[in-house]
């Protein structure tokens, strides 16, 4: 019976093809440092899931953001756990993605034929930092407010266009409801969409080209 169902599905979905090309393929023998890419993927997933749960109660307005987080921490069952994982996940993400980049650099994995994998990886590294930067403001506490104040001041130092850039980031002169709305939407729509798309390309390239091997003296 099971095999009948599997055959029916396979005929339509091409499961065997996926199994052969994705799972049942040979890979050079590598060490534990090579798990960091999939660790990043796992963390993205975890951040996504905990983030979705947080949006249930989070209110992106300066009047209520702080209180809604207080409610998540004190009122919602296991809200503190979900927020704790999301909070620390962000820090771990940055570390893991960065070390993943150092590993690919050390192994020269950015060279032929994986140049594009590297380029998409840089996009993902920057998007991760962007997620950290935009997510940091959302709790609307002192640390968040002032970190965003100094963070958005940095582009303001560029001559001529600087003040304009700061205004675009903030949606006005100071940190306001508009800033929070912009950061919130960047954090939950724009950047995740970019990340999902880029991860898709990154993964396609990894499966198509295979992971690099650890170079030896002859390489």
């Amino acid at each position, binding site marked *: 019976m099971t095999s009948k169902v599997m055959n029916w599905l396979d005929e339509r979905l091409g499961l065997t093809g996926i199994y052969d090309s994705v799972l049942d393929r040979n890979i050079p023998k590598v060490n534990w440092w090579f798990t*960091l890419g999939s660790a990043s993927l796992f963390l993205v997933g975890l951040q996504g899931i905990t983030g979705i749960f947080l949006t249930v109660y989070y209110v992106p307005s300066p009047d209520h953001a702080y209180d809604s987080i207080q409610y998540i921490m*004190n009122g919602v069952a296991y809200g503190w756990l979900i927020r704790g994982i999301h909070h620390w996940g962000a820090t771990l993400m940055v570390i893991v993605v960065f070390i993943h980049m150092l590993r690919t650099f050390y192994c020269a994995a950015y060279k032929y034929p994986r140049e594009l994998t*590297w380029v998409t990886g840089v996009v993902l590294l920057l998007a991760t930092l962007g997620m950290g930067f935009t997510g940091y403001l959302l709790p609307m506490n002192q640390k968040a407010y002032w970190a965003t104040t100094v963070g958005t001041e940095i582009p303001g130092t560029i001559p001529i266009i600087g003040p304009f850039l700061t205004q675009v980031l903030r949606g006005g002169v100071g940190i306001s409801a508009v800033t929070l709305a912009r950061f919130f939407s960047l954090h939950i729509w724009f950047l995740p969409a970019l990340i999902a798309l880029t991860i898709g390309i990154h993964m396609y390239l990894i499966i198509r080209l295979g992971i690099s091997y650890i170079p030896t003296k002859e*390489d």
Partner: protein
Amino acid sequence: MNEEQKQRYQERYAEEKQKGVKFYPDIIYKDTVVAFGLFILLVGLAIFVGVANEPKADPSDTSYIPRPEWYFLFLFEFLKYVPGAIEWVGAAVIPGVVILVLFLLPFIDRNPNRYWSKRKLAISLMAVIVLGIVALTILAVATTPPQPETDTIAGTITEQIVVGEELYGLHCVECHGPDGEGGEIVGVEGLEGVVVKSISSQDEMYTRSDETFYNVIDYGQPDLGMTPFGRAYGGELGPGAIETIVTFMRYTWDDRVEIPEEAALASAIPALGPDEIPSYEVHVQAIVKRYCISCHRQGKQNNDYFMSTYEEIMESGANAPNVIPGDINSLLLMSIRREEMPGLDPEVGPMPPTKALKEELLEIFRRWVLGGAPNTAAEAEALSPTPESAPPAYPEPEATP
């Protein structure tokens, strides 16, 4: 990379793949182990470290030292070493170039070798950058001055009520009274004799929203003589602090809201046992905080007697000593008994000025002074008659049938 080199790489890769392992299960197994480890680590961090509770954002708080997230600290620290006039080079040009180089790395680094010892230039450049980032981050963390004491952060409703009550005692009692009852103001500079309506009445509670209370405390009521308390308008309180006061008022005075049991316990003045000697720490401080501290604290110009600490209560002001342990006619006791005390300079009137303390509170003060005015609970216990120190009790005479 020329065609020949590409060809050689492909052959080499095919060979490595040949003696390699299967993606499933070998690689998947390793990945799962790492993912599980990270998950446990995160849950552990969430449970045992948690997320630090921070006060609410307060744009008016100029004493707060702004810091970016830790992973941008290196850039922040780096900018400190860039002269102000060319700050934009450090802020935009250098990071921009670094990002561009990072993107174009595969096209810039034309060296066909892959083993580290054959790529010394690339490896050492990256090492310098990474070490620089790590060093700058450590330097930034090490040189970060600690954040100055800011608003008390209150998380749960109970914590908010307790903090709010303390702040209400400090800032509001001198005009609005300990229970928000209002009345004629006595002894407040500029407002002497002004009659304040009750702010704890049912009318007030039913017709004013939390937001209204918040705004009144924040901006004050200039027409009625109430000064602004919000930091943004020249007062002392941040938004978080004002909110705790509103929470305290709502939960304490609004009869439609039930105060959490914990909060009620925390704000009650501890009851005394029949022979127990009260201490400053447990009993007197709680009363002082509610009824006296609003006027009797540092920074108040209209009197020189402060009650913020045990020492101040005993010794501050020109009329000290204010409390003589064992003396029923100590200054403090006579004042709260509302007795005339001629010949003192400065004069001491009946306290609190508008309304006498309740009988049970007077009793706590009386027993405290007579019992030796102990500071801590431990000292009070040592002074209290206990079964051990009391003279041996005679055995109860047996009841005769």
